[in-house]
């Protein structure tokens, strides 16, 4: 019998069933210490494609001087974290003490570079390293909701059991995790599991001749089979539609992406990214463009997600939400500032900031860069032996 990585894992039973806890003591089944978390953990990145105005991470740097910031349109959450009201109002009261601003001094003012490099740490795909380290019992370890790639079109190679899976339809995803309504001509999950295994086995020839162009097929079989091996998790599309004010099942628009993010968190996915476009707001000197965009598109779905998933499941899960973008907007013209801060909300986060800029939107020279952000997320997720290294923002964790 040909020894394959997937066959080895299957033989050891590492993928079977639903483990209630996820921490594995000592060396793992693969002979290496596995980073794991003490509770179901998910990191949800909300990526504002084009940039994130610093009024959402440290607004008080510009009071009465820039971006239309006044003392009446900002809220101090505590610990020096001051944000625009459009964002503050989206954060439930119960979470306001669990918000931090994390500085990232990356030196990048180019969109393509920023969108690529923000997701790489030590030469690897940081989201997949994180998802693999979180582990957990979700079949899909890392998901992009409403798309098939990271920002800038990146589709990284898998890391361990974590490959990037696109979630573009709620019903199709729910059918995969829960099964469709039974009917004579409707597929059953068990049969589909066996059938997809056979399909996978029948695909060797094609996959071996086109390993790059069909990589997503190879990874897709693995994730689909893992999904079908899990016990049924009943979800209802209508429940999500009602909660997020949706109509239909396509993951289109930010509200649908938040709904899909909730679905994936509930299935045990360790890393989810939801991207929203149109944030390259040149000329937005008074900040109105970003305020309007935030209040019209982002605020309500974000609030729903934070209420239902982060605050609502505080005792059961550790869900970390990080809001960031390519870079901050510079002054005077809201152009490209080669640094940023991420606003992070979660159970293990406490009020504090390493991301407060000066009035010129600059961060102190000793502010950590991209690696520091992922190191922080690893610590917030309470990874054993974090693959990213020590957290350079210890003051931001409870």
């Amino acid at each position, binding site marked *: 019998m040909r020894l394959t990585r997937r066959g080895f894992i299957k033989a050891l039973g590492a993928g079977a069933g639903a483990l209630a806890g996820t921490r594995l003591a000592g060396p793992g089944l693969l002979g290496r210490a596995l980073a794991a978390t003490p509770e179901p953990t998910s990191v949800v990145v909300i990526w504002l494609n084009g940039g994130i105005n610093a009024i959402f991470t440290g607004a008080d740097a510009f009071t009465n001087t820039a971006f239309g910031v006044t003392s009446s349109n900002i809220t101090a959450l505590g610990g020096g974290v001051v944000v625009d009201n459009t964002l503050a109002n989206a954060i439930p009261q119960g979470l306001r003490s669990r918000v931090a601003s994390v500085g990232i001094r990356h030196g990048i003012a180019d969109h393509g570079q920023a969108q690529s490099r923000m997701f790489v740490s030590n030469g690897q795909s940081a989201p997949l390293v994180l998802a693999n380290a979180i582990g957990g019992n979700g079949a899909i370890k890392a998901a992009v909701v409403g798309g098939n790639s990271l920002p800038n079109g990146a589709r990284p190679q898998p890391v361990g059991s974590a490959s990037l899976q696109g979630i573009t339809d709620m019903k199709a995803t729910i059918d995969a995790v829960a099964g469709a309504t039974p009917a004579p001509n409707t597929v059953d999950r068990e049969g589909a599991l066996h059938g997809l295994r056979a399909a996978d086995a029948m695909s060797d020839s094609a996959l071996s001749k086109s390993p*790059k162009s069909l990589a997503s097929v190879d990874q897709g079989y693995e994730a689909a089979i893992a999904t079908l091996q899990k016990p049924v998790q009943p979800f209802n599309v209508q429940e999500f539609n009602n909660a997020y004010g949706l109509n239909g099942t396509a993951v289109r628009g930010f509200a649908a992406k938040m709904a899909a993010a909730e679905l994936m968190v509930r299935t045990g996915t360790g890393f989810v990214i939801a991207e929203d476009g149109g944030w390259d707001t040149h000329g937005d000197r008074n900040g109105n463009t970003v305020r309007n965009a935030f209040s019209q598109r982002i605020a309500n779905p974000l609030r729903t997600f934070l209420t239902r998933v982060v605050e609502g499941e505080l005792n059961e899960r550790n869900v970390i939400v990080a809001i960031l973008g390519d870079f901050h907007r510079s002054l005077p013209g809201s152009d490209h500032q080669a*640094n940023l801060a991420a606003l992070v909300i979660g159970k293990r986060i406490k009020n504090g900031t390493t991301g407060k800029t000066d009035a010129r939107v600059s961060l102190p020279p000793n502010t950590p860069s991209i690696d520091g952000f992922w190191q922080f997320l690893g610590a917030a997720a309470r990874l054993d032996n974090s693959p990213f290294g020590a957290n350079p923002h210890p003051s931001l964790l409870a």
Partner: protein
Amino acid sequence: MRSVPKSLLPIAGIVAVTIAVLSPSRATADANDEDAADRVARCANRLSIAMVGETASPDLLASRAPQTATDAFLRDPRFIERFSRFINSQFNMTPGMTPAEDATYYLAKYVLENDKPWTEMFLGPYDIVPSNPQQPASEAVVRPDPNGLGYFRSRAWMVRYAGNEPEGMRIVAAYRIMWNTIGLTLTATTNAPDADVSAAGRQATQCRGCHLESWFALDKVAEVLGKRRGPDDDIQFDPPTGGPKQILGGISVSNDKELVEALVSNEAFDVNACRLAYKYLYGRTEYSCEGPAFDRCVAAFKKDKRIQSAIAAVAKDPTFCE
């Protein structure tokens, strides 16, 4: 059965063996025919899905020479729509915020529908504008404009890629023009956040190569485009000043039109056309061992500068089908 004379048996045996060696059995011949039929059917389906995104017709699946259908596919509205979308995704990082910002889509479609040379994308006398001037988000149209330069002088495109250089230099536009015509791709250098990104700052060692010294030196190319001026919600564009500049490795250029003329008359333009053809038909750029087929594409494209000729050369090449 009549008995064979003993004296002939060894010879008959030899002949029988010889016949068996030299002639395939009927079963093998049938299998070879089946393989050949499968091969052309796969070729037909590969061509059809690559060109128009749908299965080959039954006639094409049964055709002995499916690649001859390439010319018909090139006139198919499904191909024109699909290829126009493809070009838009190749020439821009993201979809435009308004239809007019997707000027490349509209002009590609126009060029294909009207069987124009591919150079018209970049040099043609056109303007891509919202169909309703009062509604910037209305569907866009291609209008004749004697001052047009492909889509490069369409306002929505110019504003989209106006850039934010402190002195108004259109460095982003310079890069985009070279990217779209000759496939130039550059990787931005990381700076310290407070680095000087002005013209003086771009003199720094890590910046000069891209901006000042290479044949594609962005600042030098941008000099012939003129400058942007005014706030982002009311950008104006001024013509270049200062006379001709020596750029692109020693070519004298005075303005955007001369720049584009120089770009599209260079070998690099022909190479990029075939690279686009490969990416459309193969989903990737050409590999090293596909060099000869790529060369045939470049030769075909040079004859009439039609992108259809490049695509046809690749699609009809024996290497396209297994």
